[in-house]
């Protein structure tokens, strides 16, 4: 297993390299530059700025320079937020986004999983239909509808929660963002869990377990659930990567100082280093969570072997 993990880390390097290369050149082919927005920027100043950031050099040199710096863990300075380096921005924002995304993921897995199991156990009963209805609603209503509606009802009308803001991480400020992040994921998890649980309950080893007179609890938790977990795990990996790297919608609506906002803003402002930094961070998380998924596969399903 350890060898497998090491091997996966090694194969991650070329993947990252390809991603960095494509995004670097894709970003550069786009018209415009980081210092084009400000009206009437003095050409001499602009030239100086570009020289400081090495933007006046040929593209291949800039690319090699960026790779070189990246290898040394240097993400470079942000062009549009000149007081910060990209690394500093992530050091500030990433913990916030990870906290919210992580809580949303854990809650979605727990609640969605339980709902899915209940729906599977009471298939075609009222409880099942209720879960299906919730799941359909959760997966069709977009976040940018849920979030303002949450603000309207719970913050403005009932005044239970603040409308937005981080409030130094106060619990009450996190409720809205976590709930809106969680709901779509919860819906998918509940659906997947219901489907795979129904299938798992029909399998032979469950019939055998019933014949042996095991308790319902043991059958469901120890035997059926284990087989039903695989689809959840494979969905959870990419979902986790997306959640912990922040959501622009949720962070903008609730004014959360996370990293989700950076990507779109930076891409629009041609803040090359910040965009590249975001791409790299997202890619690292994606690779990491894919690895965790594969390891969990082997833990849950003994038929999976990586030797």
């Amino acid at each position, binding site marked *: 297993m350890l060898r497998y993990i090491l091997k996966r880390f090694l194969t991650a390097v070329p*993947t990252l390299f*390809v*991603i960095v290369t*494509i*995004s670097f050149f*894709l*970003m550069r*082919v*786009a*018209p*415009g530059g980081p210092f084009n927005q400000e009206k009437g920027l003095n050409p001499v100043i602009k030239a100086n700025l570009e020289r400081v950031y090495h933007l006046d050099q040929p593209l291949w040199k800039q690319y090699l320079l960026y790779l070189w710096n990246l290898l040394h863990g240097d993400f470079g300075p942000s062009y549009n937020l000149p007081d910060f380096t990209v690394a500093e921005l992530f050091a500030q924002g990433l913990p916030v986004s990870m906290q919210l995304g992580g809580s949303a993921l854990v809650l979605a897995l727990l609640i969605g999983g339980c709902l899915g199991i209940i729906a599977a156990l009471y298939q075609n009963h009222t409880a099942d239909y209720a879960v299906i209805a919730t799941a*359909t*609603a959760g*997966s*069709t*209503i*977009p976040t*940018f*509808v849920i*979030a*303002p*509606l949450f*603000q*309207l009802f719970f913050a*403005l009308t009932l005044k239970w929660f603040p409308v937005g803001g981080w409030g130094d991480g106060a619990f009450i400020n996190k409720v809205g963002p976590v709930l809106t992040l969680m709901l779509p994921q919860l819906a998918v998890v509940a659906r997947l869990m219901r489907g795979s649980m129904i299938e798992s309950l029909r399998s032979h080893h469950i019939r055998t377990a019933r014949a042996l007179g095991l308790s319902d609890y043991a059958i469901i938790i120890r035997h059926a659930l284990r087989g039903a977990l695989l689809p959840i795990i494979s969905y959870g990996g990419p979902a986790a990567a997306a959640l912990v790297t922040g959501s*622009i*919608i949720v962070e903008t*609506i609730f004014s959360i100082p996370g990293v989700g906002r950076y*990507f*779109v803003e930076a*891409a*629009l402002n041609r803040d090359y280093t910040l*965009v590249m930094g*975001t*791409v790299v961070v*997202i*890619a690292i998380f*994606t690779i990491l969570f894919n690895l965790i998924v594969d390891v969990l596969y082997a833990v849950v399903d003994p038929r999976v072997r990586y030797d």
Partner: protein
Amino acid sequence: MTDVAQHPAQQGRSLWADAWGRLRANRAAMISIYYLIFMAVICIAGPWFTPHAFNTIYQDYNRVPPSLSAYPKPEMIDQAVKDAVKRARVELDGWKEEGGKILITVSSAKPIDERMTRYIDRSSVFENAAVVDKPADGLRMTLGADIERQHFFFGTDTSGRDLLTRTLIAGRVSLSIGLLAGLVAVVIGVLYGATAGFIGGKTDEVMMRIVDVLYSLPFIFFVIMLVVFFGRNFVLMFLAVGAVLWLDMARIVRGQALSIRRQEYVQAAEALGVTRTGILLRHIVPNLLGPVVIYMTLLVPQVIILESFLSYLGLGVQEPMSSWGVLISQGAKNIPSANWLLFFPSFFLTSTLFALNFVGDGLRDALDPKDR
């Protein structure tokens, strides 16, 4: 050999007739289909029948709440009269309303120009303003005007435009983007996936690696780059969005094509000497169509959400044109003062997505009897 085919002893039910029967039995899916047709009809035809154009601005009706009775409300007339008279730079002495008409008396230190009726007309509350009575000295004047009755069933937005018409116009945009971009994605995906699946071997390997790489790029980055390239052009936006969403389709089609090629019935057809095109048309395409149709119905809501998302970020459809995403983003900014701006577009968008989802699920059940 051809004789066998020419003796249909019993009329068999085709795949499609069978699927249609199953779909008809699915009540949620059928209701959803009717709802979608209804939605399409009101979005396409509705704007011609609403009393307002989607870009007409009614200055005096900023953010008025939805109402079934006509505007102006009695208390609004007073404000409108005051505003209009103030713009004309004369003093208001009084006004009274009788039978849909209004009589305004004004005075001024200087003789009043009769052309000031234009100031009254310019207000969206009054029309046909005319001088009724003007004493010889010209320091006083009485004006008559019709009160213009307006209906705003969904209220108006922050610039004073009718939300009903705008929601319907936005529906046109959102629905057509959904269909067009969905179609683009399906065409690219099917062609790409089918090519990879049929040719197989090294070509397949390379083509699928390309898909993998594109997959690992953050999706929104890709979309933003396309938007940046194409500018905020409406039609190109469809193509860009469609061009991003074909990856799933390509994977599904390739997988299907690979597995169908290895099925016994294809081998049997090959053994019987059926040509390559024959196999393609008779066996592979019909079996591919099921997943493609299902995936397309699930793709359309995805595209609509994506378009709304882009418009929400200000990257999509531009003013004065509108889409549901644009309206929702404006609504979200105005929830404390005007929650109907969020409510109506959200309802239209969400109910459409719901219906599309039910149709997609229904089609999956209908076309894929194994998966039940």
